[in-house]
């Protein structure tokens, strides 16, 4: 059963059906909402846009759930999907190694050249010790997401899963649809 949901696009953020007010758009909107709804995780500013979108969506989702204690737990998994993988980070990193005369590979850019860094960041922040995976598929496909969700719940330890879509083309074009799913009602 879905207990909470968050939708983020470049100009709109909706938590459990309620639109969050904001002034900015695109990546500036992400920063604005980080400041107003999170604020205690400076690593946010080092993230690429894909990570920022996924991280912020997870924070809003978990704030909606409430009672956050950041204690280690093994019963929660994070399983996300997208179509663009880590394209923006890949392009940015490529720019640091493009010219032979200006060849300075950036470690901070390289770190984000895998999409599953998003699920890792969410797990590290919240001390989720369960499954984390990030799958790249052709397009948003609810059936694929639901199938993988059902598979995750086959694990007897997993009681809840943060799942959904987290895609980013660039700083101004991104989309996240994250859901908090509880196992009990899936039985």
């Amino acid at each position: 059963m879905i207990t909470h949901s968050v939708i983020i696009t470049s100009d709109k953020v909706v938590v459990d059906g309620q639109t969050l007010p904001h002034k900015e758009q695109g990546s500036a909107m992400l920063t604005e909402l980080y400041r107003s709804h999170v604020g205690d995780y400076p690593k946010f500013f080092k993230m690429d846009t894909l990570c920022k979108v996924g991280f912020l969506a997870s924070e809003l989702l978990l704030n909606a759930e409430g009672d956050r204690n950041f204690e280690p737990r093994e019963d929660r998994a994070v399983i996300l999907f997208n179509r663009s993988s880590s394209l923006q980070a890949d392009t940015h990193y490529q720019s640091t190694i493009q010219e032979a005369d200006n060849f300075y590979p950036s470690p901070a850019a390289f770190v984000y050249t895998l999409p599953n860094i998003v699920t890792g960041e969410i797990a590290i922040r919240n001390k989720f010790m369960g499954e984390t995976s990030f799958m790249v598929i052709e397009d948003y496909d609810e059936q694929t997401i639901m199938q993988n969700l059902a598979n995750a719940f086959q694990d007897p330890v997993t009681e809840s899963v943060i799942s959904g879509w987290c895609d980013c083309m660039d700083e101004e074009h991104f989309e996240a649809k994250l859901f908090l799913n509880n196992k009990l009602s899936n039985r």
Partner: protein
Amino acid sequence: MDELIYTLKKQIIEALNLEDMTPEDIDENAALFGEGLGLDSIDALELIVMMEKNYGIKLKDPAQGKEIFKSVAVMADFISKNRTK
């Protein structure tokens, strides 16, 4: 040296995306890692790249970083003695 320290602070803020920080917020004698600015291992690698890019300094032994990155003041001293650009 004061000018180099100020420039270095600005370059560190930019290279490490230390949002909301200004050069004035960084104590040049405070530890960069651990208690100080709370930087991590990726930040250390980024500082190594920044020193090479801006000052032409190539660290032959990454372990040197532990000494050099003690504080902005120590970094500035090392850069002033070893810079090639």
